[in-house]
C-alpha cells in the first residue's frame, strides 16, 4: 500500500504523455452558402472506412471532438439531407469551418421495398407481390421460394412434412387435389400466402392435439374476388409428329362460394394420371390392386415429358358452398385419360447369386391406356366447440396396358385392370368446457372385378400365361375418443375397432403354364385401446400414448379347404416432445414402439405371376408380424423475418420380422417368395434443410440419407445387405437488375452403395444432375429463357454417361395476352441410359427420347 501514491503519479504521467503525443481536439462550424450556421449536420470522424466518433451540429452549427483518438490523416465527413456531403482530411489544424452547398435531393434514390413478411404466432404471411418476379408463371413458382417449403411431384412439403391443408381464403375446397390450383393460379391474383405452422385443421382440437404439419393459405386480392379468374391456352407445334397443347382454368371465389374448373389436353409430354388426388387420405385398397407390376420394363429417372409419347386429357371441377359461419359443403370431380407409349431396353444384373451373377437383358415397348375418375362430396362443420365431417368418395381406375418384349423371342404381355373404391368417412367432435368427445367411422369397399394378365410369345398363339385376379375388401373402422383438458394437462383415450372382410382369387385361365389357383376369404378384426396424456406448459408440449390392441383373424383357403385362425394381443408405445427453446429455436423428438400384423396376403401360398417373367408366392401360410422401435429428433431454427429456415432431422429404428424375402433367379425367370424366419432391419436416416432468402436471392440447401442393414435370401443362400443411400441438393434463385434477369440453379447428387457380405459383392451407383435456368426481359414484355439440364450417371458396367438437355423459348406478355414459342430438347438427345440399384439387383435402362420439338401457344388471361 505504501507505493499507492507513486502508482497514481505514474498513471497520470503516462496518460498526459499519451494525450500529448496522439490526441487532439478539433472544432468547427458548419454553415450554408450564405454562411448561416446549419443545425443537425451529421459530422463523422472516420479512420480508414470505419467511423470512430460522430455528432450532430447544434443550432449554432458548431461541432467539437474532444477525444484522444483524433489524429492526423483521419477524415471528417459532413452530411445532411438536401446538402452536398463533404469530407475533410484532419491535419495539424484544430479548427475546421465547413460550408455545405445546397442540392436538390432526389428522394426516390432511397425508395426500396423488401420481401414483405409478417409473423403472428405460428402464422407467417408472405406478400406475394414482393416475391413475384416477371418470369413466374403460377403460384407454385412463388410457393417454392418460401423458406422451409419444397415441392416434390405434386406434393408440397414444409420442414420435410407434407402440408395438411391448402386453403384458398381459409376454405378447404381442394382437399388433397391442390396441385390443380398451385400449377394454374396466376400470382397476380393473389395478395398473400400464409404458412400456418403446426396447423391443427380441426378447430375443436386446437391446444388438445398438436401436430407438426403446416398448412398454406392463399388470400386473393380484393378486386379478384367475386369475379371469374383464370386463363384459356391453346397451341400447336411439330416434332416427329404434330403436337397440340390446350388448357382452360377458371376459378370464382366469393366469401360464401368457391368454384374451380380445369380442363386440358396435350401430346406434348404432360401426363395427367397422377394429378387427380395427391397428398390426400390413406385408403384401404383390396389386395389385387397392386400385385401386378405396371412397369415391368422399368421407368426412367428423367421427367416423363422427355420420353413418354402421350395423348392426355383431363378435367377437374371443385366447388365449395359455405352454408353458414361453420358449415361448408364441398364437391370435387376429376377425370383423366392418358394414352402413352415409350421404348426402352433393360440390362439387369442379379447380385448375390454366386460367383457369376445372373444377367438378363431385353428390349421392349410399353403402351399404357389409363382412365381414372374420382369424385368426392363432403359436409363439414368446423368451429371451436363442434366438428362434423361426412365425406363420400369414389374412385375408379381402368387401365389396358400392353408390353412387347424382345430377347431370344418376342413376348407380348397384356394387362387389363379395373379397380373401384367407395368410401364413407364420418367424424364428429364435441368440446364442452374441458371435455372433448370424438366419434368416427369409416367404411370402404374396394373391388377389382377384372384384373387380367395375358402373355403370348411368337412360338404359339395360345397364351403361355393367362391369369385372372379378383379381389374384394370391405373395411370398416369405428372410433370413440374422450379427452379431458385441464389447464396445462390433458388425458383421455380412444377405443377403436377395425373390421376387414377380404376375398381373393387367382385363376390360371387357358395357358400352357400352370401355377395353381388361389382362393381365400375371411376376416380380420383389430380392437385398440389408446390411453394418452399430454402436457402443454407454454414452451413445452409432451404427449404419450400407450395403445393396447387385440387382433384376431380367420381365413379359409377354399382350394385346399384349410382354415387359418390366429389371435394375439400387443402393447405399443409412443411419446413425442416439442420444446420451443426460444422464439426461433425448437426441438422436437419422439420414440415409438409399434407392432404390425399381417393379413390375407400371408395365406396366398400358391404362386401367381406379377410380370411376364416373375412368379411370386405372396405368403408363407403363416401369419406375418413385425415389431419396430423408432426414435427421432428434429432441431429447427426459423427466423422468417430474416428469411432463414434451417432444420436437422435424425431418426433411427429397428424392425424385427418373422418373414424373410427370398428369390431364385435364372436367365429366363425369377421366382419371389417368403420364408418363415426371424430377421431384422436396422435403419438410420438423416435430413438437413437450410433456406435463406435475401433481398433478391433465395438459397436452399438440403440433403438426406438412409443407412440400412437387412437380411435376405437368394438362390437359397443367406445374405446380409448393407445399403447406404444419400442425396444432396442445392437451389439458388436470383433476381437481378430490377427483376430483368432471373437465374435458377438446382444441383443434386444421389448416391447408392450396397454391400452383400456373403458374396463380397459391392456396388456403388451415383447420379449427378444440374439444372440451370436463365430468363431475361430484353424489353419489358418479352422474356427470353433457356434451361440447361445436365445429367451424369455411373453405369453398372463401369464408366459414366453424361447428357445435356437444352430447352429454350420466348414469351411475349402484354396485359391479358401471352404468346410463347418453346423449343424442347434442342440438343436432340435421342437415347438416355442410367443404372440404379434396386433391392438385390442393378438395373441399367436405356430409353428412346422424344426428339427436338417446337411448340407455340397463345394464352388469354381473364
Amino acid at each position: 500500500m505504501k507505493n499507492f501514491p507513486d502508482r497514481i503519479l505514474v498513471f497520470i504521467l503516462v496518460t498526459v504523455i499519451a494525450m500529448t503525443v496522439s490526441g487532439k481536439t478539433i472544432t468547427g462550424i458548419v454553415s450554408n452558402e450564405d454562411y448561416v450556421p446549419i443545425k443537425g449536420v451529421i459530422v463523422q470522424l472516420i479512420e480508414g472506412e470505419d467511423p470512430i466518433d460522430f455528432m450532430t451540429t447544434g443550432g449554432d452549427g458548431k461541432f467539437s471532438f474532444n477525444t484522444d483518438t483524433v489524429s492526423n490523416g483521419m477524415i471528417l465527413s459532413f452530411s445532411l439531407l438536401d446538402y452536398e456531403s463533404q469530407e475533410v482530411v484532419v491535419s495539424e489544424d484544430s479548427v475546421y469551418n465547413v460550408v455545405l452547398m445546397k442540392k436538390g435531393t432526389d428522394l426516390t434514390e432511397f425508395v426500396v421495398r423488401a420481401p414483405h413478411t409478417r409473423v403472428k404466432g405460428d402464422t407467417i404471411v408472405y406478400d406475394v407481390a414482393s416475391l413475384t418476379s416477371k418470369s413466374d408463371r403460377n403460384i407454385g413458382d412463388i410457393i417454392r421460394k418460401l423458406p422451409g417449403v419444397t415441392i416434390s411431384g405434386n406434393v408440397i412439403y414444409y420442414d420435410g412434412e407434407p402440408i395438411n391443408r391448402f386453403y384458398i381464403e381459409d376454405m378447404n375446397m381442394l382437399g388433397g387435389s391442390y396441385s390443380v390450383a398451385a400449377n394454374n393460379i396466376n400470382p397476380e391474383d393473389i395478395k398473400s400466402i400464409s404458412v400456418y405452422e403446426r396447423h391443427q385443421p380441426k378447430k375443436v382440437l386446437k391446444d388438445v392435439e398438436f401436430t407438426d404439419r403446416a398448412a398454406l393459405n392463399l388470400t386473393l386480392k380484393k378486386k379478384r374476388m367475386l369475379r371469374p379468374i383464370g386463363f384459356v391456352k391453346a397451341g400447336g407445334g411439330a416434332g416427329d409428329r404434330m403436337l397440340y397443347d390446350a388448357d382452360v382454368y377458371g376459378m370464382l371465389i366469393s366469401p360464401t362460394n368457391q368454384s374451380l374448373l380445369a380442363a386440358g389436353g396435350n401430346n406434348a409430354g404432360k401426363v395427367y394420371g397422377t394429378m387427380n388426388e395427391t397428398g390426400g387420405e390413406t385408403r384401404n385398397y383390396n389386395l389385387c390392386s397392386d400385385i401386378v407390376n405396371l412397369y415391368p420394363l422399368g421407368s426412367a429417372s428423367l421427367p416423363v415429358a422427355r420420353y413418354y409419347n402421350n395423348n392426355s386429357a383431363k378435367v377437374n371441377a371443385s366447388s365449395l358452398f359455405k352454408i353458414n359461419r361453420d358449415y361448408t359443403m364441398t364437391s370435387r370431380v376429376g377425370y383423366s385419360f392418358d394414352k402413352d407409349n415409350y421404348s426402352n431396353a433393360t440390362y439387369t444384373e442379379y447380385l448375390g447369386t454366386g460367383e457369376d451373377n445372373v444377367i438378363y437383358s431385353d428390349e421392349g415397348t410399353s403402351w399404357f391406356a389409363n382412365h381414372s375418375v374420382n369424385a368426392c362430396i363432403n359436409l363439414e362443420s368446423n368451429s371451436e366447440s363442434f366438428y362434423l365431417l361426412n365425406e363420400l368418395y369414389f374412385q375408379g381406375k381402368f387401365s389396358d396396358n400392353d408390353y412387347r418384349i424382345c430377347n431370344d423371342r418376342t413376348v407380348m404381355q397384356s394387362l387389363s385392370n379395373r379397380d373401384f373404391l367407395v368410401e364413407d368417412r364420418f367424424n364428429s367432435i364435441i368440446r364442452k368446457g374441458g371435455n372433448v368427445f370424438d366419434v368416427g367411422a369409416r367404411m370402404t369397399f374396394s373391388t377389382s372385378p377384372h384384373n387380367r394378365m395375358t402373355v403370348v410369345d411368337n412360338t404359339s398363339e395360345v397364351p403361355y400365361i393367362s391369369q385372372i385376379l379378383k379381389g374384394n375388401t370391405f373395411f370398416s373402422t369405428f372410433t370413440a375418443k374422450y379427452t379431458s383438458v385441464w389447464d396445462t394437462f390433458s388425458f383421455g383415450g380412444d377405443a377403436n375397432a377395425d373390421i376387414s372382410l377380404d376375398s381373393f382369387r387367382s385363376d390360371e385361365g387357358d395357358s400352357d403354364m400352370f401355377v395353381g389357383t388361389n382362393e381365400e376369404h375371411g376376416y380380420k378384426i383389430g380392437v385398440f385401446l389408446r390411453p394418452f396424456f399430454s402436457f402443454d406448459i407454454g414452451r413445452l408440449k409432451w404427449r404419450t400414448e400407450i395403445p393396447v390392441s387385440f387382433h384376431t383373424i380367420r381365413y379359409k383357403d377354399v382350394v385346399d379347404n384349410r382354415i387359418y385362425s390366429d389371435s394375439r394381443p400387443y402393447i405399443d408405445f409412443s411419446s413425442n416432445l416439442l420444446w420451443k427453446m426460444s422464439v426461433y429455436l425448437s426441438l422436437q423428438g419422439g420414440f415409438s414402439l409399434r407392432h404390425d400384423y399381417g393379413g390375407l396376403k400371408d395365406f396366398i401360398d400358391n404362386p401367381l405371376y406379377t410380370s411376364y417373367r416373375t412368379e411370386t408366392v405372396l405368403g408363407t401360410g403363416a401369419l406375418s408380424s413385425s415389431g419396430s422401435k423408432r426414435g427421432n429428433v428434429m432441431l429447427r431454427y426459423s427466423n422468417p423475418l430474416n428469411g432463414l429456415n434451417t432444420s436437422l432431422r435424425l431418426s433411427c429404428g429397428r424392425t424385427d420380422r418373422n418373414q424373410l424375402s427370398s428369390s431364385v433367379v435364372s436367365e429366363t425367370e425369377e421366382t419371389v417368395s417368403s420364408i418363415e424366419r426371424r430377421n431384422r432391419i436396422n435403419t438410420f436416416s438423416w435430413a438437413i434443410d437450410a433456406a435463406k432468402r435475401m433481398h433478391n436471392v433465395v438459397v436452399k440447401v438440403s440433403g438426406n440419407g438412409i443407412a440400412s442393414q437387412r437380411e435376405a435370401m437368394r438362390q437359397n443362400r443367406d445374405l446380409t445387405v448393407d445399403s447406404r443411400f444419400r442425396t444432396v441438393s442445392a437451389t439458388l434463385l436470383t433476381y437481378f437488375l430490377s427483376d430483368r434477369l432471373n437465374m435458377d440453379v438446382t444441383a443434386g447428387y444421389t448416391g447408392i452403395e450396397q454391400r452383400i457380405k456373403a458374396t463380397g459383392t459391392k456396388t456403388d451407383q451415383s447420379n449427378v444432375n444440374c439444372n440451370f435456368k436463365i430468363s431475361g426481359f430484353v424489353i419489358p414484355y418479352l422474356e427470353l429463357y433457356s434451361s440447361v439440364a445436365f445429367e451424369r450417371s455411373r453405369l453398372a458396367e463401369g464408366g459414366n454417361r453424361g447428357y445435356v438437355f437444352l430447352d429454350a423459348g420466348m414469351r411475349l406478355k402484354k396485359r391479358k395476352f401471352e404468346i410463347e414459342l418453346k423449343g424442347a430438347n434442342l440438343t436432340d438427345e435421342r437415347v438416355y441410359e442410367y443404372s440404379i440399384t434396386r433391392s438385390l439387383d442393378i438395373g441399367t435402362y436405356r430409353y428412346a427420347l422424344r426428339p427436338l420439338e417446337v411448340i407455340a401457344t397463345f394464352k388469354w388471361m381473364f
Partner: protein
Amino acid sequence: MRRYRIFVVSVLMIIFAGFVFAQEPKKLKRLNPLRYEIVDTSRLVVIYVHRTYDPVLDVAKAPDEMLLLGDKFSMYRSYGRYKVDSLLSKNPYMTYDEYKRYDNEFGGFQDNLVKSYDAGTLRYGGWIFMNSYRYTEEIPKIQWKLAKGTETILGKKCRMATCRFRGRDWTAWYCPDIPISEGPWKFGGLPGVILKMEDSKGEHLIEATEIRQASIPFGYPQKLYVKSTREKFLKELADYKNDPVKSLESVGTVAKDKEGNIIRPSRKKLFYNPIELE
C-alpha cells in the same frame, strides 16, 4: 378518484356502444376518423416490421409500424392504424362491421410518438384499456457505441452500433447513405437512419421493410388525454397488462354472469413485453 371516474365512464361507454350495435348491427353510422393537429409533412417514410416476443405467454406478434420524417418533426406510429384511418377518412359512412374487419386486418397498437426537433422534446401518446394517456419528455440522448459490423438491409449497406437504453442492450444498423439522424420508436441520434434494431434477448426485432417517398401530413392526435409521466404510464400499463382483472377490479369494475357471480377469466396476463424496462 380520477382513475375511478374514467373507468366508470369507460364501462358506461362500452355498455352504450354494445347496446347500440346490438340493436342496429347493420345500420350505417358515421364513424369519425381521428383528427390530428398537423405540424409537419413527411418527405420520407420508413415502414418497419416490429416483432415482439412475450416469453411468458410464448407468443410473438409482428405488426407493421411507420416512421414519418419531416423537416422539423418526426412521428412513429402503427402502420395498420394509419391504413384504417385512411380508409375511414375516405369512407366515413362505412358500417361498424366493415370498420371491425379493417381494424382486425390492419389495426395494430394505438400508441404514437412525435418528436419536435426544435423543442428537443418527444410527446408520447399511449392507450390503457379505454383511456388515452400522454406524456412529454426530452428526446433521449442515447450513448451509442459505433462498432465494426456491417449488414445489407433493403439493399443498403448499414453499419452497426450498440447501446444500452432503459434496461435493454440494443444493436442497431444505421444507413450512412440516408443522412437523417432518426430511427424507430424513440431511437435516433446515429449518423444515418436506423433500419434495424434488435435487443440482446431476441425479444424485440424492428426491421425496415420499405422506404418510400411520401408527403403525408402528420401531427399530434386530437383526443382527450390523461396527462401522465413516462414512469407513471409505464407502471399503469404494466399493472394492466400483467393482471387486467385485478387492475379493473381495483377501480371497481368487475364482470358478472347472469346470476351475478363475478367472472374471473383464467388467462390473466395480456400480451406485453415493453421496449423500456426502466
